[in-house]
């Protein structure tokens, strides 16, 4: 007890044992990649290559579609073979650029700026923006936007998120163990860009070796603290992490961490920032956990962005049993996708495979009003009430009870004895309320 945490939350089995001791393995070059033009929150990127163009690794192939957007880069060298709609890891079909490999892995010229910490803040920010970095924890908010708070919102605290509270996922854990220095370098760059006095590394206490390692490497840095957080889902959700680490609450109804002087970045993002600022390396690869009971060889794989999930799974020797469900991301908030011919994006933290039995979902029964969903909701909502109003198409009441404040962590649906698909109802509510707002 006494560990820092947030109110509410659940304790699912963490199921990290499948992959937590597996060193990060670099996957061989894929034969083709699909680079979706929307891997982030914000405007879709605009392609600047056309069918048949030859591209190098790291070459820009799409421009940001606005300020809240990111450029995309080729992650393998070869030829652009298609610009079309492809399956997207959020379960929809979306525009993307297909590149077929020439198997040469020819890169653009990278730099090595050893004195990168002397660079101006503007230059650092420019390099981050040019590298096409977005949040790698899942939500995918463009990083340079988070690093550009308006002057009236000074940032005093930077939090690096190493919580990784989703079951199964161990990619962040492995990079914390294997690329600790890179994360710390990224943290220092982020801190400098933001002018934040304080840096915090937040890690759940189920990763004691990672906590120890960071504490050891940061023992001479008086302004960077390592915080061990209570093991609880969703500890890694931005608002909950901020509250646990600083006791500050992000205002609801669309408030941002910057409103209370905080910026949160995922550990993977910190590495990407370091590589972008020092080497001008665009974000063309990431570490993803491939796991599940039925996966023959669960792994933490470093793979090129745009690699197909089917190839990732082949690299992990496939599955023992017939696949029932494919989840892009973690099992709590990830998306179930209909096809393995879907590319990994910058925000893909996991590829989880379920057998038919694990994929089975119980039928909904009537709400018992037990209040378990109320007890666990980290946003202090009454999920059953929101779902009830959505079911009766009362969008106004759904909005009043905070449907838009839900972050869809899924804790409510996880504990519901009546198997009510609360997140599904809430999602419908979110869509309808957004539609209504746009009409007004």
């Amino acid at each position, binding site marked *: 007890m006494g560990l820092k945490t947030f109110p509410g939350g659940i304790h699912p089995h963490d199921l990290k044992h499948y992959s937590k001791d597996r060193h990060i393995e670099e996957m061989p070059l894929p034969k083709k990649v699909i680079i979706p033009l929307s891997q982030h929150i914000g405007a879709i990127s605009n392609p600047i290559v056309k069918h048949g163009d030859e591209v190098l690794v790291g070459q820009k192939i799409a421009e940001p579609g606005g300020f809240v957007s990111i450029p995309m880069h080729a992650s393998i060298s070869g030829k652009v073979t298609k610009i079309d709609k492809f399956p997207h890891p959020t379960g929809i079909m979306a525009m993307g650029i297909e590149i077929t490999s020439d198997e040469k892995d020819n890169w653009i010229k990278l730099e090595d700026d050893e004195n990168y910490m002397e660079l101006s803040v503007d230059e650092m920010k420019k390099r981050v923006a040019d590298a096409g970095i977005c949040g790698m924890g899942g939500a995918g908010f463009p990083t340079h936007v988070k690093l550009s708070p308006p002057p009236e919102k000074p940032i005093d605290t930077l939090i690096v998120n190493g919580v990784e509270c989703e079951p199964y996922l161990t990619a962040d854990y492995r990079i914390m163990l294997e690329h600790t220095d890179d994360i710390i370098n990224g943290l220092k760059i982020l801190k400098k860009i933001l002018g934040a006095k304080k840096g915090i590394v937040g890690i759940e206490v189920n990763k004691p070796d990672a906590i120890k390692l960071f504490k050891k490497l940061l023992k001479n840095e008086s302004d960077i603290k390592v915080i061990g957080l209570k093991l609880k889902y969703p500890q890694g959700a931005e608002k909950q992490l901020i509250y646990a680490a600083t006791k500050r609450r992000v205002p609801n109804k669309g408030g941002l961490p910057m409103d209370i002087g905080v910026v949160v970045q995922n550990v993977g993002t910190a590495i990407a920032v370091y590589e972008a600022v020092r080497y001008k390396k665009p974000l063309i690869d990431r570490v993803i956990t491939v796991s599940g009971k039925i996966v023959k060889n669960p792994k933490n794989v470093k793979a090129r962005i745009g690699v197909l999930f089917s190839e990732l799974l082949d690299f992990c020797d496939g599955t023992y049993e017939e696949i029932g469900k494919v989840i892009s991301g973690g*099992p709590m908030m990830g998306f179930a996708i209909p096809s393995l011919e879907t590319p990994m994006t910058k925000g893909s933290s996991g590829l989880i495979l379920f057998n038919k039995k694990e994929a089975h*979902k119980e039928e909904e029964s*009537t709400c018992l009003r037990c209040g378990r969903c109320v007890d666990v909701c980290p946003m*202090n909502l009454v999920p059953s009430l929101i779902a009830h109003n959505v079911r009766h198409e009362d969008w106004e009441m759904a909005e009043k009870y905070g449907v838009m404040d839900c972050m869809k962590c899924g804790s409510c649906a996880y504990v519901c004895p009546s198997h009510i698909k609360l997140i599904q109802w809430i999602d419908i509510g979110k869509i309808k309320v957004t539609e209504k707002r746009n009409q007004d």
Partner: protein
Amino acid sequence: MSDVYAVSASPHIKQRISVPSVMWQVVLALTPALLVGIFFFGIQSLILTIYAVIAAVVTEAVIQRLRKVPITVSDGSAVVTGILIAFNINSASPWWLPVVGSVFAITIGKQIFGGLGYNIFNPALLGRAFLVASWPTLMTAGWKATNPLSNIFESSINGLKDLPSNVPAVITSATPLGVAKAIRDTTQISRDMAETVMNSLASADTIQNLFWGNIGGVIGEVSAAALLIGAAYLAYKHIIEWRIPISYIGTVFVLTYIFGGINGLFSVSILLPVFHIFSGGLILGAFFMATDMVTSPVTKKGRIIFGIGCGILTVVIRLVGGYPEGVSYSILLMNIAVPLIDRYTIPRIFGEIKIRTRINTN
């Protein structure tokens, strides 16, 4: 797109919990109290409980059949109702009493509203209220413990034998709460005498007997210890939550301490509120009936208000009302208030406070 895999909204994993698992665990939690009931009152207790359960399950099945909805008796909720009905009658009752209670509870208390999840009142309590209103003598008199150990007058109230001969007539009520009520209401005995009786009620001896169940009463509510074992199990399994029982019992404790004395204010001993907690149906009511998910508030604050309300009403009925015991009526009355309580206790969304303070400071 070669394969098409199952697609559904997140989350993709689920705690292993379901309505039947909740209900059957409640049944399990009620078992210790039933065993104690059988121990003190004999096998008749078990037979009556079986009657009540069968009646509840059959009624539910028949009505669901008539309503042309899926028959869900295997979810265990009707079994819980049946057991609770039996727990509220005494072991000497005729066989049809629990049967009528269960039929009423399931029909009028539950199915008429649409079944599990839609009922306003705790079905078992509504059934009990119906029985008390229809057969008051059967429901409140003739409580004679069959086990010779359990005669409270002989074993607990030490000073009682020295009372004048006309006094026992006043306090022939078979339950400790009945005695407490009679003592407060009567004018036939002197103040000193009343205090003596009150003190022996609130003695460690009496409370010990109440705790273990060595008293007269209905089948399921006599042993606080057995009920608490079941309640602890449910709390450990997160099926009941502390807010309702603690606020309920806490309120009874505070109010009986302040108003429980013979002269109306501060009771003589701290043991009197303890006596009130362990006697009557409070433990059963606070842990197993007030916590009924369907008929209690969903919000955390609401649950505390609900518990306090139950506590106030219970004490008012016990101390100034017409009945010696008020647990079931107070819970039923608070059931009515649940929609209102829920409506006014919607929690403040995480982060909402900040916005207000920001506006204030700007």
